[in-house]
């Protein structure tokens, strides 16, 4: 069984960490992650840039609507995510538009990735 663990916190606070605070947290996390990686339990993980860098694509019926800022509605729930390797926001939006065409309704939030740890498992299970 694969599980995602989605990280929520106050970004005001997290992005105000001093370099020392940041390093201390990352060191504590690395300590927890090391045995999980060794035992093949840890899949890919990533850290997102702040919501100020986010762009939202509303999957409206006609041309999807591009809005600055993060997805802020509370009616819809997080159902999944993609990681795409693209040159820029424009290319990411183009992919999101294609996906929206195949599955209208709801929204996609496009947020650049700050830190990406690839899947360290020998035989990544689907």
């Amino acid at each position, binding site marked *: 069984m694969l599980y995602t663990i989605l990280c929520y916190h*106050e970004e005001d*606070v997290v992005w*105000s*960490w001093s370099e020392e*605070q940041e390093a201390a947290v990352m060191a504590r996390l690395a300590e927890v992650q090391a045995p999980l990686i060794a035992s093949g339990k840890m899949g890919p993980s990533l850290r997102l840039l702040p919501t*100020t*860098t986010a762009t939202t694509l509303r999957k409206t019926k006609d041309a999807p609507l591009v809005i600055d800022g993060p997805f802020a509605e509370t009616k819809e729930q997080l159902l999944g995510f993609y990681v795409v390797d693209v040159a820029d*926001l424009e290319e990411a939006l183009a992919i999101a538009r294609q996906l929206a065409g195949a599955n209208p309704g709801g929204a996609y939030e496009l947020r*650049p990735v700050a830190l990406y740890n690839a899947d360290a498992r020998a035989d990544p299970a689907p």
Partner: protein
Amino acid sequence: MTTDPAWIENAIVGARPRAVGALLRYFRDLDLAEEAFQEACLRALRLWPEKGPPRDPAAWLIMVGRNAALDVLRRKSRDVALPDEAAISDLDDVETPLAERLDESRFQDDVLRLMFTCCRPELMAVQQVVLALRVVAGLTVAQIARAFLVSETAMEQRITRAKRQIAVMGIPFETPDDTARAERLAAVAAMIYLVFNEGYSAADGAYRARLCDDAIRLGRLLQRLFPAEPEVMGLTALMLLQHARHAARFDDAGEIILLEDQDRGRWNRKLIAEGLALTEKALRHRAPGPYQIQAAIAALHDKAATPADTDWGQIDLLYGVLERLQPSPVVTLNRAVAVSKSRGPEAALAMVEGLGDSLAGYFHFHGVRGGLLWQLGRRLQARAAFGKAMALANTAAEASHIRAHLDRLKAEAEAAGETG
């Protein structure tokens, strides 16, 4: 984790602009708003470690601060005349759920008003910076005094004087229309960039360098409140892309290392990624402004793996756009630096020579001019230009940078058998 004192401190600092902004709206008095916030912070420091932090720290601080200040006003009113009810707004809706009154649109105007209060055009630039650091960013007087290398008493007086000026001018409480809001936003953006520049010129490790972090924090806050303003994105991007190079900009002795000589491995990749993402987002709006163009220029520098990879032709073009948007001899001077790389020192010098009248008292003008003359082998003139730069240096780092040029020039001249 939640009772960690560092977490509480960060949460309080992060909530400050919104909380003081809202309290200023309630009480219409900056000192009272600050005192109310202070009181709320004291209670937070007492209560949060035991009970855990509230879900919304800003809302908590506003509520507690407001009640504390009302108590003070009530106590005072026994000896003095009753407070003017009209001066305390929003008292009629105490029963409405807090969340309703704290919606983002209100925060928008609250924070903008608070920031705008600190950057009224009547205030001198340095007063704006000092006030913003104290009132909006929440630095202590001691911290600001240390950043500006003056005594605490002197800084306290400076802040008190500026606040008195604000009290005389009055704080604008009417809800701004779109034009007024845009004007306030522009003034606030300029003020945040002033704060950033105060920190930017300071050597790594210097206390003042932390002002860059404060400015970036304010930029992010402004952007969260105004998510669709390309110039606000541009401002935040510009600060991030410049600050990313901070650790590489000074050597161990605190001397400036020029962009082309910097160890690019010491650039902060996370800040660059954030800055690039914001620049892209901003430029999609096709509404270019000075901050966006400057961010795009900084982005081209940050994207170059080595100095030789820098796209100077594109930078030249962007400075051309900036010259049209915001004509200024300093912009032309910067453009000349790009031109010297893309078209050679001769073309650049021709651009620079036209600026002598307006920039005669500007350190960088003489520094750039000296460098171009040197590249063209006109050593005597280069030396004279560097001499002028030396006399106009603003910091010890700038002076010693020019001193190093002069020493190398002298050595070259001696090797070539020149005298004088």
